């Protein structure tokens, strides 16, 4: 049941996932709120993990925020941990902003 649900989500956001995975290979600018430094250290993750999720993860939720795409990207890190990254995307400016980590 859960697998079917996951498949549906993967299919629903297939285009968004493709966009994020492709963008991760481009010259995009990344904005990071300073408050995340402590949060990332506490969770033992860093910006490389965010990068990895963008490159290999899947979009599981999509919305808008200040005329930018607001997407939650879920990925499995190299050590097997799962990480959800909430990001806003302005594709025309090649700009990504980190909003949340879970």
């Amino acid at each position: 049941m859960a697998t079917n649900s996951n498949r549906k989500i993967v299919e629903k956001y297939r285009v968004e996932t493709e966009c994020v995975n492709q963008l991760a290979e481009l010259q995009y600018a990344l904005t990071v709120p300073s408050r995340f430094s402590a949060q990332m250290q506490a969770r033992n993750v860093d910006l490389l993990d965010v990068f990895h999720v963008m490159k290999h993860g899947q979009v599981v939720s999509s919305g808008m925020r200040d005329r930018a795409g607001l997407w939650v990207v879920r990925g499995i890190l190299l050590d097997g941990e799962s990480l959800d990254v909430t990001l806003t995307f302005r594709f025309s400016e090649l700009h990504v902003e980190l909003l949340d980590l879970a």
Partner: protein
Amino acid sequence: MSKKLHGGADVNVIAAFHAVDLGAPFRVILNDCIVAKIDSETGEMLDYTIPDFEGLVRTVVMARLVNERKLNGAELKYLRKATGIKQVQLAQVLDCQPEHLSKVESGKHPLSPTAEKVARLFLFKAAAKHHKMPESEEKTMLDNLLDQVFSGLKPVAAFDAEELEFQFFLKPASVGAANDDEETGAHEPQHCAWSKELMVACG
């Protein structure tokens, strides 16, 4: 350089930004390229923007790999992670068990000089996206050159890798591209490339 924003914040370009959030086991300093939003009242940094993040990660990896300081376990793990290589993949390349590589990365076992050379070359090629190059004479020449570079590299042992520091700058890829933007006033992303101007190894 400072610019006022609505909502009580200033935008500044940071002269020397220590990129702690990159998680590197050595110091990464980004010069004159990080734009930070600063709270006007408290002076606290609200957020910061790294241009060409993907390029920065690859440049940091390559800078460390060509540095002669011997790689420690934490650095090897970091460089592997930055290039998106799984432990089992690197173990296969180094012809060892993943368990052994795990011990090397946690500092329990040293990395042999031969394995270090193989790891450096493999990770460098991964960072340089070598696999995306089409088979050609140029690629063969590049392979030979990289083999020579990493065969000739003599890693120097060090006890405190935290003292290793790399400084990076962002340079426009070409003058023509920068002028085009000025003339048109377009707010398109400027094509820039990371460059390592200075490398400091203290101690």
